[in-house]
């Protein structure tokens, strides 16, 4: 069963990035190798505008399941944009042992 809307079948192979919360997305980022994230970014980033346009056909508070999954995927894209666009590594450079946890967040 595909998670994403049919128009986004090209992103289906990244379905394991469909994660509703930031702690899940951040943990997956830390557990991923750069080539994996690069591939996800290179495929998903060009579809970001289309994904937004697709989700914006519905009220944000009442997204159909597939649109919600697409939005969660794009939230993961936002999270990996840092390693890919600037850091060239999963962790924030110069952050050593520091941990900052997101403990309350609005979940779509």
């Amino acid at each position, binding site marked *: 069963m595909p998670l994403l809307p049919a128009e986004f079948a090209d992103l289906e192979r990244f379905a394991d990035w469909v994660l509703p919360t930031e702690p899940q997305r951040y943990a997956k980022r830390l557990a991923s190798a750069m080539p994996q994230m690069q591939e996800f970014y290179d495929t998903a980033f060009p579809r970001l505008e289309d994904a937004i346009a697709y*989700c*914006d056909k519905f009220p944000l508070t009442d997204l159909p399941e597939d649109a919600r999954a697409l*939005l969660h995927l794009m939230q993961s894209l*936002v999270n990996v944009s840092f390693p890919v*666009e600037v850091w060239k590594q999963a962790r924030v450079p110069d*952050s050593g042992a*520091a941990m900052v946890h*997101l*403990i309350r967040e*609005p979940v779509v």
Partner: protein
Amino acid sequence: MSHFTKPAAGSWTEHYPELGTEPVDYTDSIDPGFYEDERNAIFKKTWLNIGRVERLPRAGSYFTRELPAIGTSLIIAKGTDGVVRAFHNICRHRGNKLVWDDFPNEETSGTCRQFTCKYHAWRYSLEGEVNFVQQEKEFFDLDKQLYGLKSVRCEVWEGFIFVNLDEDAPPLAEYLGPLVTGVEGYPFHEFTEVYSYRAEIGSNWKLFIDAFAEFYHAPILHMKQAVKDEADKLAGVGYEALHYQLQSPHSMISSWGGMAPPKDLNMVKPIERVLRSGLFGPWDRPDIAGLDPLPAGINPSRHRAWGVDEFEIFPNMSLLFWAPGWYLTYHYWPTAVDKHVFEANLYFVPPKTARDRLGQELAAVTFKEYALQDANTLEATQTMLATRIVSEFPLNDQEILLRHLHKVAKDKVKEYRDAAAAR
């Protein structure tokens, strides 16, 4: 040469002559004796913000706060009369912690009609009266009037809930004074989309305030967050604020605010270009009343290039307003002389579209990337301060808020010690 006008005295620091300009002694951040006195002299005597009213949407809503700095756990609850109250989280029967879930040291929140102790089921109203005692007849002339929850002074300002353990402290509004109350009227209540962060930091609480109360470090520590050309330019120019203002014990810095939206889109990362958002928040100001004009206390120099104001509400709260229309708070809760819990809350208006939502997501993700870099420096600072190889440090004019913070902390501790010695 300075880019922005400084006061007639020649510098921001000399504009406040009581601060002095000599190097500052940082023993206050490593000395366990100072820390113990600081808890008594500062944290147990000062108004402390412990959250916002949005966390208490209805009668019976409550949350708990674990506050080692003041040596207690508190229950904050909204009564049936709509009043927000604070109580020590201790049962009057035999001292069990009254409100907690599985782990006594973890904070909790929820909604209830009354608080029931897990131990022997004494029950307390939302207003703190004991209204049920299990097998009351087994006690000896128990006067229930005398066994209500121990309350703590609690006042709300602009939706921010403050508590104070000191019965003799002046009222909250008076304590905040004109510097802080100058932001009244900001539409805080509209910003109900909240991201909350927590970090355990291996440094004295004041060192993290230091890190956030000067932007002198920004072009250097966070260099890699900007694109290369921009980073080089920023490092060359350095950093200067638009304006500083002190009103002891509080202070503020007003700053120009960078790129929202940037003059040249090549200055920002690809994802920022698409989502129109970044560290400075979503670039497009939300459509709500109260942001234009802003309250007089915000952007006090009325500068066109204004981007952000940061108010340091003594002792441990920072309140920041970003030009594009959102705000955030930081809190620094000491747990030991060389440890504290850092909390940050990002407040946005509820997004209407997926585009808005992803813009906020990017701002939140970016905040965390910066905070990780800021946090990591602190442990390194703490360990070296603790060596006492060097204890005095030259602070520059862009570090005036640090000079002020350490001076206020030392003055309060001195006052407390002098009073104790005189007794």
